[in-house]
């Protein structure tokens, strides 16, 4: 596994530099959003309204954390299954979103949008939520607090670990990996 560092905001060149199977360590600001928040973001886009956060060059992490215990920055915070965000992702890539972190495979439409708009999809280890939370240093709800775990949060992360599953050249680590080990 080749290790690469990512520091958002990301550029086209940052994305072009990534290959499937790379291990990335992210440091800086990322945003959380899952089902309900995606629905609202895309509704705003469809109505031509401004989003509560500028997604240009940014990374969205598909997560709904557990509540923080006293003394914690955030509760357990592992990735949720990504395909539920597939209907919305291409529209966000089109306005400049550069990377998504989740788990599980994406639709062809999302993969095509990643090629077209130079984006990528990263997987964090599903279910390793207590461990992943250790790389989150700050968390702040910035939109839709009424959604509880589904609110949009701004996270400050340090060496957040993820693996490149889809790069902007059409590669897919899941497909390659399964092909290799299928008997």
């Amino acid at each position, binding site marked *: 596994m080749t290790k690469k560092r990512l520091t958002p905001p990301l550029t086209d060149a940052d994305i072009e530099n990534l290959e499937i199977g790379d291990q990335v360590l992210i440091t800086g600001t990322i945003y959380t959003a899952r089902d309900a928040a995606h629905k609202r973001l895309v509704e705003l886009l469809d109505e031509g309204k401004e989003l509560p956060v500028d997604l240009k060059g940014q990374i969205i992490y598909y997560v709904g954390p557990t509540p923080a215990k006293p003394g914690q920055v955030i509760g357990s915070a592992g990735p949720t299954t990504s395909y539920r965000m597939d209907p919305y992702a291409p529209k966000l890539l089109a306005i400049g979103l550069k990377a998504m972190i989740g788990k599980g495979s994406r639709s062809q439409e999302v993969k095509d949008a990643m090629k077209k708009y130079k984006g990528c999809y990263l997987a964090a280890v599903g*279910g390793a*939520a207590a461990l992943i939370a250790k790389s989150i240093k700050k968390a702040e709800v910035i939109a839709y607090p009424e959604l509880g775990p589904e609110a949009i949060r701004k996270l400050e992360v340090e060496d957040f670990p993820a693996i490149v599953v889809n790069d902007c050249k059409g590669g897919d680590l899941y497909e390659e990996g399964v092909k290799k080990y299928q008997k």
Partner: protein
Amino acid sequence: MREISVEKITRTVRDLCIEAACDLPQDVENLLRQAKEREESQFGRYSLEKIIENVELARQDTVPMCQDTGLAVIFVEIGQDVYIAGGNLVDAINEGVRQGYTDGYLRKSVVEDPVFNRKNTGDNTPAVIHTEIVPGDKLKIMVLPKGAGSENMGALKMLKPADGLKGVKEFVLKTVAEAGGNPCPPIVVGVGIGGTMEKATLLAKKALARKAGEHHPDPKYKELELELLEKINKLGIGPQGFGGRVTALAVHIESYPTHIATLPVAVNLNCHAARHKEAIL
């Protein structure tokens, strides 16, 4: 009649919810450690290392191993000589869930209505409760917090009797193959065979409450569990779907007599955080 108070039931459910979320049962952990030893793919081994590290950390800090602390599925076996005193059982269980998910800082993931009002109930109630009256004067409570990532990948098929054993195998393998990396492999595969439509799905869920890796008492079904496990692990999905040798940790089958004209098969998948805790009162 033996009397069991609703307060005792509430307290037990509360504690089991927190324990289940933070402390992976030893049977599942042992299988994960064995999986790490035999996994060949580098991404698979990496995932298993992180998963095991996470299990240890969650236990040590009493924090949830996964942020999806699930919908609380609760099986209650009530001895017919038990008298539940001081209130009603369903309220007592839901109060336990409410307290457990609040006091344990677990995520509340239940919405009020599936279609018309997907508003969070705020306390993870109501639980999904399955009760069964059994002989004796004990009350057994099993808590299975069920995450949606794996739950969404389940399936039911009403096979024809003519589809037989071959049909059963094909359906289980197809369900696991289509799920790919979504249910957070390595998974535990629960299979319910027989009964009626709802009976098969309930059996599949109950199969997940079994100690991971224990077998069906009937040697024919035990053999089927082993054969399915081997075939599933040849699918190549691997830990987290990155490709690899270990896609499933165990296959658990539960069976029941059925109608002359049917062969229901349900598959219910559980992620590697195959959480299950029980207590006998």
